[in-house]
């Protein structure tokens, strides 16, 4: 590995920084009590973040479109989850659909 020491230091910095980011929320909440409405807003913000994360992970790669196979796979999983299918089926169907589409030449 080239530049092993700077890379290792960078990794430790990322680990430390990430921990501080994780700590920021709970540390703030320990000092400030939020009214009930703000609590609802904070939980909503987590859902909004997770929804955006799902969409970007499913549809994009870098700055562009991820291709059809992955989003179709995720959509199949989503429909199954919506129809209350078991979680195992949801996950396997998503991966299986994307894999089969790629096998068939859909990118």
């Amino acid at each position, binding site marked *: *590995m080239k*530049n092993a020491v700077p*890379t290792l230091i*960078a*990794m*430790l910095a*990322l*680990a430390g*920084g*990430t*921990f501080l*980011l*994780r700590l*920021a*929320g709970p540390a703030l909440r320990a000092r400030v009590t*939020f*009214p009930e*409405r*703000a609590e609802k*807003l*904070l939980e*909503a*913000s*987590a*859902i*909004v*973040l*997770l*929804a*955006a*994360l*799902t*969409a*970007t*992970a*499913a*549809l*994009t790669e870098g*700055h562009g479109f*991820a291709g059809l*196979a*992955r989003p179709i*796979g*995720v959509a199949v*999983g*989503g429909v199954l*989850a*919506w129809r209350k299918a078991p*979680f*195992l089926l*949801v*996950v396997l*169907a*998503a*991966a*299986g659909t*994307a*894999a*089969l589409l*790629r096998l068939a030449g859909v990118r």
Partner: protein
Amino acid sequence: MRSLWKTLDRTQWRDIALVCLAVGVIGLSYGAIAVTSGFAWWFPVLMGALVLAASSEFLFVGIIAAGGSPIAAVLAGLLVNARHVPFGLAVPDVLGRGWKGLIGTHLMNDETVVFAIAQDGLPRKRAAYWACGLGILICWPAGAALGALLGSVVHDTDALGLDAMFPAVILALILPALKQRELRRTSLAGVVLALVSTAFLPAGLPVLIALAALPLFTAAAATQGADQGTDRGADR
């Protein structure tokens, strides 16, 4: 530990185990990509345990492998992980106190947060968060180690459709929350904002941009509050 065991039912344990397994499988590709990019086998394993945030680690490895500077790799990784700040504001009660709280804080990630939110009542939220978090703490570095050993054999995980797993897992877990209309609308607006901004913003920022849709939620909540005759002026 015994109370944690009893708090969740079998279906929930199975779901959590499955998510941890999926994380381990993604870890395989992470470890394989890292060693084929020229990292030592232990590097993705150590980073997996210490950073414990998949997308930032993929990005870090990718930037270094492409010849980018370590500083750029750290900044990009921190940007991707910035969403943990709002996550921490949303789920502080499940983390525990004292030294246990520090471990609980380290276990915060997309999967543990979404599992905690998906449960009813604090004991179940806490149990799901910890079970999923400890599982991932084991499965993610273990998957990376196995992937690093197997190397180029598992390089093309896209052929197996593994890249569709993570979005499907999170989607399945947030669906119940999206039954609430104003939350669904707000999330949809956030999704549009994130997707559009992905075209020109660095990784990590688009997801945070989605939070700009939150006024939609407050507006809906405020209207409801006004209907019920509550005070709408006092906020935050």
